[in-house]
């Protein structure tokens, strides 16, 4: 049994210690927003936050996630930067097929939490690990800048 703290809630899962967090989320907990793309940390579709740091859940054993605070796409909207990123994504109509966008949003939210006004180079460095076959990159770049400019509108945001 492994204890995981995900989006503020504790979960106990029957997983071997070496099971990647991705499959614990998807197949054991039914949290399907985090996507399988490559299984080798090459595409970023499975990106989650571990204590706010973006990590590839497809290669991260659950044993390494235990004791840390995990945030997934289902919970990132409760963070200030995550909510701004989601709204900017909709405002600029970033998304096409959407399959990679959970990972893109998680990467972007982590970037903004760390660097409130990222440069193009910051964006390149933070998101070059996230592949989008629909080629939404120009809009992702603009949406990150928009999210950075736009102050939080909801009172809930910290």
């Amino acid at each position, binding site marked *: 049994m492994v204890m995981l703290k995900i989006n503020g809630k504790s979960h106990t899962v029957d997983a071997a210690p070496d099971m990647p967090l991705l499959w614990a989320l998807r197949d054991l907990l039914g949290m*399907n927003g985090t996507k399988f793309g490559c299984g080798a940390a090459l595409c970023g579709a499975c990106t989650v936050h571990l204590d706010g740091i973006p990590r590839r859940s497809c290669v991260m054993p659950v044993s390494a996630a235990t004791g840390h605070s995990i945030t997934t796409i289902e919970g990132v909207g409760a963070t200030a930067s995550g909510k701004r990123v989601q709204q900017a994504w909709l405002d600029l109509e970033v998304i096409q*097929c959407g399959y990679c966008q959970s990972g893109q*949003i998680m990467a972007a939210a982590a970037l903004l939490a760390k660097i409130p006004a990222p440069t193009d180079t910051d964006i390149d460095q933070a998101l070059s690990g996230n592949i989008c076959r*629909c080629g939404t990159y120009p809009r992702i770049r603009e949406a990150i800048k928009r999210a950075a400019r736009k102050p939080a509108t909801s009172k809930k945001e910290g």
Partner: protein
Amino acid sequence: MGQMSRRQLLFTSAAAGGGFLLGLHLEASPRVLAATVKGTQTDFAPNAFIRIHKDGRVALMMNQVEMGQGTYTSMPMLIAEELEVGLDQVHLEHAPPNDKLYANPIFGDQETGGSTSVRAFYEPLRRAGATARTMLVAAAAEAWGVDTASCRARRGVVTHTLTGRTLSYGALAEKAAKLPVPAQVALKDPKDFKLIGTPAKRLDTPAKVNGKAEYGIDVRLPGMKIATVAASPVVGGKLVSVDDAKARAIKGVRQIVRLDDGVAVVADHMWAAKQGLAALDIRWDDGQHGKINTADVVEGLAAAAQTPGVVVRDEGDAPAALAAATNKLESVYEVPFLAHATMEPMNCTVRLSPDRCEIWTGTQVITRAQAAAAKITGLPLDKVEVHNQYLGGGFGRRLEFDIVTQAVRIAQQVQGPVKVIWTREEDIQHDVYRPYYYDRMAAVLNAQSQPVAWMQRIVGPSIIARYLPAAFKNGIDIDGVDGAAQLLYDIPAIRVEYVRHEEPVLNTGFWRGVGVTHNNFVIESFVDELAAAAKQDPAAFRRALLHKSPRATAVLDIATRASGWGKPLPEGRGRGVSVLFSEWGSYLAEVAEVSVSKAGEVRVHRVVCAVDCGTVVNPDTVKAQIESGIVFGISGALWGGVTLKNGRVEQSNFHDVRVMRINEAPAIEVHLVHNQEAPGGIGEPGTAVTAAAVSNAVFAATGRRIRKLPLENQLRSA
């Protein structure tokens, strides 16, 4: 539109099932879809696309699938425009398989591909909306005992203009359902459009920012197992034996399924299935393709290119002009096998019982998937249910239903529901690839350096002969020659030939633009060669030959002007141009600006694309599709290509299947032409027009003419 109203646009099934109780939701959804088609007595369902409930809910059935291209917004816009409802008032449902109700008129079956959705449904869906609105207005007029001309419909409400009385569509549903469906209805004058032509917000995206959108891979059923597969690494190969002792010892592995051409590991979760697969010791009989390398394929194509093909277009006497010419150019162009690498790996979920087969998957061809499952199981079509899902990328890959066939064969050996998911490695190595094409080009320039003869011989397999046999006529693959047969340049002698040469060592199929993507690279590169031989500016050279095509000239002018064509560039940079016209009916011109490092790495700095796709439904979607196509096209042009060694695909994952990343993406500008011409396709043209623009820019920057893709392989090997 406000955020709340967009959030309301959930699928009705999702709204009923809610959040993450996916098992319950999926259990419920087949009944929802069955109700969709039949309707109930109090619902108003004048056709297969619209159902208005007594409670006022407007449900629209989506037969053209959503794989990123925006159909789940553009199709509702067409209906809503004429139905007189707001996009914030509609609910969407994935349509069930039914060719009679939902066939795409361009293909004759329920199919999303070929950049056809708006072209095929621009009028039928408006007519569907207008029919329903006409009947609702008639029902209101009857209720009030007034003339229909005195009634007006707006946002789901009919108003009697003289008295101000109103009745909602929901209140009118029962009455309208009893009226005869009119044979003819008037469609709006385009000048009265309120939705069509406006940048409407997409209806599918709110569920895609928070993880709630359900793709095929997200299906969960009670008691479901997960399977992953190793199919024969060589096409036509067979399973000889498998030692599964180590795999069976892995916790969570439940069963090893043997197929004649593959092995599947069935497990409680994907992690166990993947580990199990890696632990198998499999012996294959490679069959007849086990020694084939890429060079063998090219050799076969080159040999086939020596013989004349079927004549596709013949004007003047190009062969005679070439035979007599003193100033002749000849070139051979080659483009490689390409994998699709959709972000969502191939997957399909099946629940099979003796008298019923249920399938959940994201497919571009739902009725073909249904028929395939019926054939394997021996069940009649009406016992095979297919529930489409959002597609995590299509690009033509999901026009094939090999995953459905395989998943049903696996399900035949498994108790209870099973979700089959391919690893990325399986996905790359068992794709249905864009064919390898080999083209011979020749042209004659006269004393004034004008082209007077043009010859293209296209050599490659016929996808159409396999996929749409009825459309394969007179030995011509209409897709393989698309974009070549319609050459717009005014040249007195033109011959286009097609040589069918199959490449059975790999399965080949559609890949974003297919024939046009290949032909545009070849044609627009060769035109550039002619311009260089004529010592003329490539854009001016083209313009002089396009005088009979004002729409092509217009996009060329827009793209060159916006790109700063002719203005000085920093040292080492070059601009290249490409013009596209094909069966899609859209005219594009693109200018790419690149630089090339000493090591042969290409950087695409900027791309300007002018698009005339006639009537535009959702301008932001058109722009997004062109941007998307350009990025997809650059990936293919610079790096794309799978290779064969001993019949096996050598690449396996994103470390050796290189695709564009954000730090490599150019600035992209899209300029739309506004007119009332018939709608043209937009999903694929952005990809098709790009390789030549980039390659011509490489020529401008370096003086190197690349005739074989991918570009960087050639630049590095020099």
